[in-house]
């Protein structure tokens, strides 16, 4: 039963947002997870919140609401199916098994995801469980929530969006603007520089015998050095110059087109019928 759960960042954002918008009397929020299942991997791509009420001995969730929203979502994305449900909070409670039973009717082997928004232990823990039935045959069957591995997975544009959104972490007003291209390249090269410095530091330490050499790291370093293409000065100069020339020519042409556009506009304005 080695299932792995791969979660997209969108899902986590949505859970946090639903928790922030919860009703004043609710302690936690629950909702449905949507995605697809393939062999041993469950990929969760979307989720939505389901209104529910919890008291000490009872739990009520609006089933019809959940079905409605799932239906609406199917109109947009027909490939997303119900794969489980999520809840905020740090642990699995008694009520969870009731809710889980309901979801077991909707899909095959639902997974249960918890995001610890109460920040116990100073971390917002992300955990996933599946329900394993246990008990003696011919006896009362019970089920136990077994933890399974959970990872994050992103589409490429999602990674980029996430990296931008993450920049709000350090700022005071939690805001950030999308960056200009050149600024991003500058930042990436600075990061590369930092990484290279770390590698250099490691090599120095090993040479000065401050640190034990590691064969795997050594092999990786060798790969790194070899991956820089080996070109003579002339070869490089030709490649560089031709590329620069191409780019400059394209820039000139596009500027020319822009001027022509402006001219065209003014001329049509001038002409009288």
């Amino acid at each position, binding site marked *: 039963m080695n299932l792995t759960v791969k979660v*997209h*960042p*969108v899902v986590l*954002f*949505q859970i*946090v*947002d639903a928790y922030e918008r919860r009703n004043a009397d609710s302690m936690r929020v629950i909702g449905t997870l949507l995605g697809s299942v393939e062999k041993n991997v469950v990929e969760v*791509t*979307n989720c*939505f*919140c389901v209104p529910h009420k919890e008291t000490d001995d009872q739990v009520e969730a*609006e089933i019809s609401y959940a079905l409605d929203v799932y239906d*609406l979502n199917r*109109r*947009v*994305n027909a490939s997303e199916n119900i794969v489980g449900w999520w809840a905020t909070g740090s642990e699995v409670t008694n009520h969870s098994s009731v809710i889980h039973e309901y979801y077991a009717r909707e899909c095959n082997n639902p997974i249960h995801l918890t995001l610890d928004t109460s920040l116990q232990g100073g971390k*917002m823990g*992300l955990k996933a469980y599946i329900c394993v039935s246990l008990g003696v045959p011919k006896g009362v069957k019970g089920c136990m929530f077994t933890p399974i591995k959970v*990872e*994050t997975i*992103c589409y*490429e*544009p999602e*990674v980029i*969006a*996430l990296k*931008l*959104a*993450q920049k*709000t*972490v350090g700022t005071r*007003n*939690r*805001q*950030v*603007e*999308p*960056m*200009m*291209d*050149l600024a991003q*390249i500058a930042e990436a*090269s600075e*990061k*590369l520089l930092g990484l290279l410095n770390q590698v250099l530091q490691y090599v120095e330490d090993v040479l000065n015998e401050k640190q034990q050499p590691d064969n795997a790291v050594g092999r990786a370093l060798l790969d790194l050095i070899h991956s820089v293409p080996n*070109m003579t*000065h002339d070869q*490089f100069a030709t490649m*560089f110059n031709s590329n620069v020339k191409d*780019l*400059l020519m*394209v*820039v000139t042409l*596009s500027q020319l087109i822009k001027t022509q*556009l402006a001219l*065209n*506009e003014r001329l*049509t*304005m001038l002409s009288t*019928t």
Partner: protein
Amino acid sequence: MADSKITYVQCDGLAAMKIVKHCHEESQGNMEIAQGALLGLAEGNRLEITNCFPFPKSTDESVDEEEYQLQMMRRLRRVNVDHFHVGWYQSSDIGNFLSLTLLESQYHYQTSIEEAVVVVYDTQKSAGGFLTLKAYRLTPQAIQMYKDGDFTPDALRQLKIGYEKLFAEIPIHIKNSTLSNIMMLELKDMVQEEEGSHFLDLGTAGTLENHIRAMMDRVDELYQEASKFNKYQQTVMRQEQDKHRQLNRLAQENAARVAKGEQPLPEDDVLKQFRPLPVPPRLNPMIVSGQINTISQHINQFCSQSLAKLYLTQALQGAKEARGESK
């Protein structure tokens, strides 16, 4: 005309991520444009976008769009999501978002909701490594022009509108709540470092080709529009000349008739022969010019960053050679 002073747009991380996910998934399947609604609230000069939801594809006729929107908004209100409709978003390809449909839709939105914006997400550029989310609003002149429905050059000149003044771009910020920040810190450990840095790739030819091809198509269109307009002008001139010739002949005839003592013929008959020709509308060429403008801006940006990357590699090569020589 009352124009609510929206000076900037604040977008929640959640809404941005949802837009990215939806547009990316659509672009993977078929090349159709992904659209959706933006929800949030307007406060002073700031428009906040707190959530969004995608629209079903317009090719599916069995789906009633209005119905879908209403149902969706009602459901979201149950879970305390802002249900004030503040605009819509659309994916685009290499900046070709400016089209007649976009103008019309935004016009309808802005007339019914004062602060509506359209957020455009550029799929190609974002996949290449630069998240491109831009918010636009129609300028008051554009709204006036649309209301009049009159696209002749005279009307445009009066309104002082050109392809540059159709849309006003509004700066967009991304904002996250503190809890989201905590969540992202957790996420940072889980997402790998190398992903998302492939925009340092030197292979620029492919994207550049696409841009230039798109630009060529647009320029061809503009050329056709321009020749249409030129032909119109030539016919007008020829018409004027014919009219003058007829009038002169009439004047001569009249002079002859007056000499004979008869009534001069009225000019109206002649004038009636030459009806004014309809002026071709300038809306299409303006839109195409706007598109060409955005494409050329994109090309400029792209070339500048490619040049930067090339110079980086030159520095690297220089350093390598220096080491080689010093050994």
